[in-house]
């Protein structure tokens, strides 16, 4: 797990978007297991789940419909979607239109994509925005499980996360040397 840190505007989000291929790098290339990602295309993207600043959920659709869509677009995991919603404490809202949920609930639904799809690399941009303490520790333990399954996480966060120190590396951006 790599945590990218640095002051506002130092390029954390840009770095993550370059890693996803959403943004072109000015120079250099991104390799996934030795191959450049623009050549791998779909073979790379089925291994990646990205949760950015925007939640990427449709407000007119229900929670379940949103997760089904996320599955259809990526690599579906074996987990039952009701179980996924239960894990992120949204079970009661399965059929509710997302537009009527709170910001924190939408964030939890966006992060539920991580469980609905079966991907190796999680790229997360400020995943804990609008989350309460209980949800933060719940997702921290999910991250830990993912790392134990040999998964990879690259994230930015201004929040302190309680994860075992040996599995976390830090990258400082925007520091004057």
């Amino acid at each position: 797990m790599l945590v990218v840190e640095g002051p506002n505007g130092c390029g954390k989000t840009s770095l993550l978007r370059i890693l996803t291929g959403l943004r072109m790098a000015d120079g250099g290339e991104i390799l996934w297991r030795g191959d450049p990602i623009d050549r791998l295309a779909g073979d790379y993207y089925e291994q990646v789940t990205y949760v950015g600043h925007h939640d990427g959920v449709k407000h007119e659709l229900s929670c379940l419909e949103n997760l089904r869509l996320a599955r259809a677009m990526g690599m579906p995991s074996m987990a039952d979607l009701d179980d996924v919603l239960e894990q992120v404490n949204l079970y009661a809202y399965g059929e509710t239109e997302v537009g009527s949920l709170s910001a924190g609930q939408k964030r939890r639904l966006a992060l539920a994509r991580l469980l609905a799809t079966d991907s190796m690399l999680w790229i997360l941009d400020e995943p804990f925005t609008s989350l309460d303490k209980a949800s933060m520790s719940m997702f921290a333990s999910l991250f830990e499980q993912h790392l134990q399954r040999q998964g990879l996480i690259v994230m930015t966060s201004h929040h302190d996360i309680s994860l075992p120190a040996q599995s976390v590396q830090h990258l400082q951006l925007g520091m004057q040397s």
Partner: protein
Amino acid sequence: MSQRLSLTQAFVFLLRRDLLLALRNRAEYAMPLLFFVLVITLFPLALGALPELLARIAPGIIWVAALLAAMLSLDSIFRSDFDDGSLEQILLSAHPVAVLVLAKVSAHWLVTGLPLLIVAPLLAEMLGMPAAAQPTLLLTILIGTPILSLIGAIGVALTVGLRKGGIILSLLVLPLYVPVLIFAASATENAAMGFEVSAQIYMLLAFLFLSISLSPWATAAALRMSAS
């Protein structure tokens, strides 16, 4: 081991999702159709009691209105997806983006182009268009409106990242719409006068196949640029 959906399944899934979204945003999607009907209804009122003139210019009126209605609806193809971040998720999908784009454009046509086809006979009758020309009118709308959606998608994809892209979008797309307008209106006019129309229809079909095969790729590339 889990398996990702086949390409056809992903296509159908996204198409159904867009149709569902359109169903839940009915008012927004009814606008272009309402515009189409209103513009055409106003012409007889403005031109007065001149049935021959009206019948003569009916193909032009219907096609200009269809063109403007299509322009009006274009922004909705990618706007909301861009604003809420769903577009990023589509670009990061494991499936080829061009195919997903084609699904979105198909949904857009089913919601905005197909209704025009359905109300066109009524409006043609109202303008007094000769019965002989009506099948040709419907055929040109059937072939022409998908071209409008496909070409328009490229323009929207290029301008969706701009805050005030509306004007640039119309400047960008309208010139590309003109050939469709010319061939479609001329086919209908020829049919009204009892002439052969196959040349124009073949041209329209050529445009259609050209845009089906090229537009999704151009749109996908433009979306990547807009998202970065």
